[in-house]
């Protein structure tokens, strides 16, 4: 069975440019997460979806970040405009339900803003 699929794996953009990341969760997983991981740090939650509803977006910088999960399956995370400090790994993850259920991560999308 396929795991969490993310694309692109790597992206280099100039500051002020837009960028988008796509995620396909594990089949049947209704909960989808976007995390950001800075170098040498643990992942930090940006947004969590239950089906198509964003139930926790308190850590999402809404002035430049947006996310959507149409039809409750695939999701897209967008940054516009990108800043130098946005350079990080953007990890998508999914689980069946939340709370103590296991969360499975994708390989990540590595963003470098120059």
């Amino acid at each position: 069975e396929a795991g969490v699929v993310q694309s692109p794996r790597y992206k280099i953009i100039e500051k002020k440019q837009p960028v988008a990341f796509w995620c396909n969760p594990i089949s049947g997983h209704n909960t989808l997460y976007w995390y950001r991981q800075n170098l040498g740090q643990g992942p930090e939650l940006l947004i969590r979806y239950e089906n198509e509803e964003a139930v926790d977006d308190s850590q999402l910088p809404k002035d430049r970040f947006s996310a959507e999960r149409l039809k409750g399956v695939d999701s897209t995370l967008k940054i516009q405009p990108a800043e130098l400090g946005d350079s990080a790994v953007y990890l998508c993850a999914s689980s069946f339900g939340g709370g103590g259920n296991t969360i499975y991560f994708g390989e990540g999308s590595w963003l470098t803003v120059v």
Partner: protein
Amino acid sequence: EDQVTQSPEALRLQEGESSSLNCSYTVSGLRGLFWYRQDPGKGPEFLFTLYSAGEEKEKERLKATLTKKESFLHITAPKPEDSATYLCAVGKNTDKLIFGTGTRLQVFP
């Protein structure tokens, strides 16, 4: 304030030299404690979930234990392929997962 602290930050072991990684936490509404392994350039790979104090789980050379305030990841007779960053995370009753900063393990032949 919810907090997850991992120690040591980095650990160098000789092949076969057993050791333990520590994860201490202060969090309200704990739903589970998770251990992940992360290789360079990869996403975190799930290892274990522990739900209650006294629980233990094993997988090959790894054994995870849980108390009310901390968890240990014991590595018995490690091999070079065990080299990775090991991340600890706590799941809250708000469905939020809070990660520590990880322990970078290097095992030399």
